[in-house]
């Protein structure tokens, strides 16, 4: 495959939040800590990781809703790290986002026709009310919603229907980069399959670059060409999806995969699933060295002091891993 155009290049992004009330108890939350990502046209990258590990924060920085404390974001060759206001809005037509919280991301006072039609009008993609209506109808059918529902308000839809309205809205401007934050979590399996197939199809047919955040590993496996595993603000493993799933080399990836539920009553795992040791650490007081070391089955002394960097393993360039003992972990050779 010829190397396709680089559409998104994020380097060394950092983001820290201040939480709590002001005063002594005020804490800092290190939400994203040194993440770099590249995305090519027509490629899909999945991001998986525990709740609270910084996935949404990363996504919001990439689409310009949150500014990084440090690091750079280049989209289509243009450095947009510091771009704000009108230029950012214009650029946003090329980068769209499907939000994790479908309800709060939709203005409750607008009908679906207005919600989806608004960006079309603002960016002059349609002229006249009739054209707007027919384009909105088309977008609704794409996500399997009846066009006759376009006169309803967001609260009059079910959870899964609202999620699909968010997707239709993001697709309206035919963006070059589509960032989806848990786009199918509220959908039942069958509708989920429809939406996933749709996204996959658009991405391949129109060369959209897709960033797909999900906690459901099986969905990511179907959508993503490459997968990035995030833990507590950092990337633990990034690479070709099949390689990551078939021979995970980071202990956290292995734990995640082992916990993936199956629909098989005889293999119920609630009781005997490999749960991670210990509680998830707090991002306001992240562990030293490798942030995963407090829960790692393979932990050695070095892990608490030395931060592992993302590196390729000797035999393959297909993925990078941030673990001192990645080779051994992959072979399963370390005593657990």
């Amino acid at each position, binding site marked *: 495959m010829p190397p396709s155009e680089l559409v998104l290049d994020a380097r060394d992004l950092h983001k820290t939040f201040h939480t*709590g009330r002001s005063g002594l108890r005020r804490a800092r939350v290190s939400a994203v800590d040194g993440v770099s990502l590249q995305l090519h046209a027509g490629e899909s990258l999945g991001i998986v990781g525990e709740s609270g590990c910084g996935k949404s924060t990363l996504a919001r920085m990439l689409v310009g809703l949150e500014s990084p404390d440090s690091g750079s974001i280049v989209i289509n060759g243009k450095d947009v790290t510091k771009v704000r206001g009108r230029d950012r809005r214009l650029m946003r037509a090329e980068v769209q986002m499907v939000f994790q919280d479908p309800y709060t991301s939709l203005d409750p006072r607008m009908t679906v026709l207005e919600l989806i039609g608004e960006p079309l009008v603002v960016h002059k993609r349609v002229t006249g009310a009739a054209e707007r209506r027919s384009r909105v109808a088309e977008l609704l059918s794409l996500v399997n919603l009846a066009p006759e529902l376009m006169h309803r308000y967001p609260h009059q839809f079910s959870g899964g229907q609202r999620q699909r309205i968010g997707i239709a809205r993001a697709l309206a401007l035919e963006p070059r980069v589509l960032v989806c934050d848990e786009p199918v*979590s509220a959908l039942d399996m069958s509708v989920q399959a429809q939406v996933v197939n749709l996204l996959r199809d658009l991405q391949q047919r129109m060369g959209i670059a897709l960033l797909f955040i999900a906690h459901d590993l099986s969905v990511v496996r179907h959508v993503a060409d490459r997968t990035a595993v995030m833990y507590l603000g950092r990337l633990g493993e990034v690479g070709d999806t099949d390689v990551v799933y078939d021979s995970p080399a980071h202990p956290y990836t292995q734990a995640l995969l082992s*916990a*993936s539920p199956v629909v098989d009553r005889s293999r119920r795992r*609630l009781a005997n699933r490999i749960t991670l040791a210990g509680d998830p650490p707090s991002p306001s007081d992240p562990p030293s060295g490798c942030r995963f070391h407090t829960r790692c089955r393979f932990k050695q002394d070095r892990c608490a002091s030395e931060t592992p960097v993302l590196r390729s393993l000797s035999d393959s360039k297909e993925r990078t891993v941030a673990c001192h003992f990645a080779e051994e972990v992959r072979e399963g050779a370390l005593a657990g």
Partner: protein
Amino acid sequence: MHASADSTSRALEVRGLSVTFATRRGPVPAVVDVDLQVARGELVALLGESGSGKSAAARAIMGLSDRNATVGADTLRLGDTDLLSLTEQGRRRTRGTRMAMVFQDALSALNPVLSIGDQLGELYREHRDMSRKQARAASVDLLAQVGIPAPDKRVSDYPHQFSGGMRQRILIAMAIALRPELIIADEPTTALDVTVQAQILELLDSLRRDLDMAVLLITHDLGVVSEVADRVMVMYAGRVVEAGSADDLLSRPAHPYTEALLRSVPRADRRDATLHAISGSPPSPANQPAGCPFHPRCEYVIDLCRTSRPALTPLEDATARTAACHRSEEVRHATV
């Protein structure tokens, strides 16, 4: 074996529940004639396609329907209390203390201007006569139970400062705070990764075991259903189309919709080019097809299905299994 038949152990009994929404384009019958029982200590999963009426039914049971909804029921009992005969005030009192709901929209269900500690603390101060300090300690405890890291630091944060999955867990914490007899959890784990999800499911599991809490779990996640449900009910287009014990129903579905749903589950251990989706779209509640509402999408369709709607009837050889399909016996045996 079927505790739900025994009146002393019954936590929730619903008969003939219907919910109709008034819209500009006419009435939308979202829930039609639904019967539902949950025994104490039992976990019943409610499955169904997006838009099939699950949330509408749940909100009607709680007495929290939208303003444009008309709710009707023949029976609506919580333990020995007839909810239909209660005043609005009596209903409200029952809600906080004896029955609680985890809403599908985590962010909109939390008060944005109160810290999490204040929202949780208020429950304890109002219903448990705790002092401010005791209430705060109890809130921190509760946040720890649902896996929020560093709860003592985060308790004074506001809803928008938490990640999507954290908000969802905060809602779960609020619902279980007063140890109600019945919890209705509407998609409580959609934003959670598998490890945190397992923790929440274990928590619900232990609550019903130790405190005999009844749980009605609305979910589209068949992995979750197969791990924790005692019984399963499947809704399609506003009606219950299949019900039975989880073991039997998941291994031998008797309704073609359930069967297709089970087939559409993606798997993490292999990758298919496209995911299996049920063809066609669900009928809009406002204009349902004649006969069986599933017939336009059904692989088992025969002429009878186009004209006559099958009633929910017991299956021949299985106790306590019901299905609404003219060919349920064939479907059931085809999938052995």
